[in-house]
């Protein structure tokens, strides 16, 4: 028997591995022990602090200056005892709770401790799902908008961070041939679609007073999910470009087209009630009155929505011709335009027009409404 035969026989034994949950728990305990030893080193320096702690246990009042040391030690003891109750409470905490940061920290620790890429992606998907459920609970709760605002902000921040991290972990297109990469990309693509749909739904469920503040943040999160899904889909398309079986990719692209169409529909509903009008440019002067801003907004959004719809039809046509790469590229263009329309719908229009250089301070535009009435006034400066 040659050495290579023995190596081959030994190969299956390489798969023997410890339980992933045990590894995470072991790491946490190790990290805690390391921290304890560091603290012990500090505490050992002053025996009088320890005397004060024991004095408390003997029903004597601790000196006020020693209360922090007492709290720290009891905290370590609680955690050393397993901290089961604390960990359980943290696991079920919602945004706004004092234990919510611990919940997030424990999840991140679990993610870092996982060293298989499949494990990491599975955990990231679970974490994103958890954030979406929390977002749903907070948005649909009957709390007053003021309380809701902080909680929604907290969970949206976490969603953005998690999505950005997952997005950065997706390998570049050059690695598309690896089976593991493609499997990871498929999982991420599915998760991204679900995330984007949920975020869009939650955005529409926000009370109106919160939409102005938080709508933009949620749009940003939906956009990150969309970008992540598109990047993942790009990897799948590239890896299977030679494959005969394109039905799966076609279905995934179709799913994303449906999400894009839904987004256009939602934007359209926002401007339905506003009457259409045209903007006439009279030489170099532009007049806008405050009550005409919704009209301008509606026109811009409708224009962009139309363009996005055209591109989506082109993408569908490319799909029918089995040109996946072209379909995805066209869909990406449509997505960019939809995002622009969403931003106009959610944000301060005057500020956008200034940023885009369409309006300058003291510039004027003539607007003809359906009744042919001209309204004119000086555009306020951006800071007003």
């Amino acid at each position, binding site marked *: *028997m040659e*050495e290579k035969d*023995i*190596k081959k*026989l*030994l190969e*299956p*034994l*390489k*798969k*023997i*591995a*410890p339980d992933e949950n*045990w*590894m995470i728990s*072991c*790491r946490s*305990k*190790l*990290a805690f*022990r*390391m*921290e304890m*030893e*560091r603290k012990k080193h500090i505490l050992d320096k002053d025996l009088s602090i320890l005397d004060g702690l024991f004095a408390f246990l003997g029903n004597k009042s601790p000196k006020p200056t020693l209360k922090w040391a007492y709290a720290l030690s009891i905290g370590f003891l609680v955690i050393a005892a397993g901290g089961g109750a604390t960990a359980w409470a943290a696991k079920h905490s919602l945004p706004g709770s004092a234990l919510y940061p611990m919940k997030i920290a424990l999840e991140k620790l679990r993610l*870092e*401790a996982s*060293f298989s890429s499949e494990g990491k992606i599975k955990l990231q998907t679970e974490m994103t799902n958890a954030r979406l459920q929390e977002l749903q609970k907070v948005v649909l709760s009957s709390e007053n908008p003021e309380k809701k605002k902080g909680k929604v902000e907290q969970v949206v921040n976490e969603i953005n961070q998690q999505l950005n991290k997952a997005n950065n972990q997706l390998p570049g297109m050059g690695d598309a041939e690896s089976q593991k990469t493609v499997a990871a990309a498929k999982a991420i693509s599915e998760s991204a679609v679900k995330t984007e749909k949920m975020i869009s739904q939650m955005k529409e469920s926000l009370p109106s007073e919160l939409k102005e503040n938080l709508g933009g943040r949620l749009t940003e999160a939906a956009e990150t999910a969309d970008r992540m899904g598109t990047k993942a889909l790009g990897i799948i398309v590239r890896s299977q470009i030679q494959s005969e079986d394109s039905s799966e990719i076609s279905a995934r692209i179709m799913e994303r087209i449906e999400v894009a169409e839904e987004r256009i529909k939602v934007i359209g509903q926002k401007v339905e009630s506003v009457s259409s009008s045209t903007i006439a440019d009279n030489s170099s002067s532009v007049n806008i009155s405050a009550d005409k801003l919704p009209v301008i907004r509606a026109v811009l959004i409708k224009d962009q929505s139309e363009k996005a719809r055209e591109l989506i039809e082109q993408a569908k046509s490319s799909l029918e011709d089995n040109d996946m790469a072209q379909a995805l590229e066209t869909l990406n263009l449509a997505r960019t335009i939809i995002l622009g329309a969403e931003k106009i719908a959610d944000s301060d229009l005057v500020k956008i027009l200034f940023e885009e250089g369409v309006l300058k301070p003291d510039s004027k535009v003539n607007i003809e409404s359906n009744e042919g009435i001209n309204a004119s006034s000086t555009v306020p400066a951006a800071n007003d």
Partner: protein
Amino acid sequence: MAISETQFLELYDVNVAKIYRYIYFRVNSETTAQDLTSEVFLKCWQNLSKDGGKEVKNHRAFIYQITRNLIVDFYRQKDKLPISLEEIADSGNKIADKLPIADRNNDLQEIASKTLDVERIKKALGGLNSDYQEIIIWRYLDELEIAEIAEIMEKKEGAVRTLLSRALADLREVLRQ
């Protein structure tokens, strides 16, 4: 210079699975392997974090040395204690149960065939003396370099190559039986 906590936890992440597997093959018990693995890393940390402690150039080799010593201590202690219920339960565990779930989803005949192969090689490995077992685990499963193995065993590289050659010969002999 003492190692930082972050650096040490990175060492843990990279090495924990291999150390666990090495210990598992030597003690044939999941519970014991878990306990000893935890102890290995704690002991390593206590040594590496000490200011003015031993200067360590190859942290991985150091971890394996600590592991080896702890396994020896375990057997010394074990000889003094009666067998526990845990050990009786663990000894019934088939190594095939430790394989990833995906491997268990193949058809029954293939599973049975793989299980027999794995059990056979594991039994053969277990039949070797401890030095031979260890060198085969380190070289072919953990893929350590000869120089690293030499450092762990505190032997010269030439001696390690000879030992490896003898270990393979022994393993061949056991597999032929």
